[in-house]
């Protein structure tokens, strides 16, 4: 028998939950340099955001969040990415975040639900 099969190098987790009555699928993947989070209620990735911590000399970290694909007029999505990247950075991981949000509604309740579900099932 040959050598043992290596595990797939990208740990990942999928789950389905209900947020405000909408069935929401969540996928979280941990790459070497990024965390990818896919949240979908519409069967597609929707809007994709990229978030990273800025390297700087000041004590308080700053973060750069940008929408790289999709809706650019939903500040709550940017806030969602901001909360997640801060959480990722606080746990000493220096990974960037790619967050995809394919949501039916962009209310703050929904996005808070998304943030807490992701943090609860985090891989960092």
């Amino acid at each position, binding site marked *: 028998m040959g050598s043992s099969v290596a*595990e797939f190098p*990208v740990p990942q987790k999928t789950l389905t939950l209900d947020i405000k009555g909408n069935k929401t699928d969540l996928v979280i993947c941990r790459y070497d340099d990024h965390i990818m989070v896919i949240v979908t209620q519409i069967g*597609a*990735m929707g809007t994709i955001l990229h978030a990273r911590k800025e390297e700087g000399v000041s004590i308080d970290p700053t973060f750069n969040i940008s929408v790289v*694909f999709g809706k650019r007029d939903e500040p709550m999505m940017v806030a969602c990415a901001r909360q997640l990247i801060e959480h990722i950075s606080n746990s000493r991981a220096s990974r960037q975040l790619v967050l995809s949000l394919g949501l039916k509604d962009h209310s703050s309740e929904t996005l808070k639900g998304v943030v807490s579900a992701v943090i609860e099932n985090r891989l960092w």
Partner: protein
Amino acid sequence: MAHDGLGIDGLNLRDSCNSAPISEDAQQGVSENDGGIQITCFSEVVNDSTLHFQIIRLEKQIYAWIGCNSSKLGRLYAAAPTRPANLVSVTSILDGASDNTGSGIARRLVVKTGVNIILACNIPKNNPTLEADAERLLMQKLVSLGYRRPKPDGSSV
């Protein structure tokens, strides 16, 4: 675990996935995710490089990641068929400014499957053979999962 026969000669097939719910090939008929998201992962060794493939299937879109010897995310591309003609558009959405290895793969995947694709790829540039092998392997897997664009006369590509 039974391995599906993709008929790839000269390659070392290692089908490995981690413990998260992941669906098997359509040929094996086992699906662990009920109607939601299905994830397929596999790795292959090609000419001393290990290529990792991760395919996440959503209802209306596919996300795929190709890793070459590492688990970095790489460059991210979005490709989709665009109206009015059957043209395919591709754009780089992360990191693809000076190195567009992978954009061709994304475009051709959409041409052959007709589905919107988001592709992440960390294959190093100036390696067209590796890029072609990766595209072929990924396309084979997508075809085995049932993604095949029918020709206008009704037969499959």
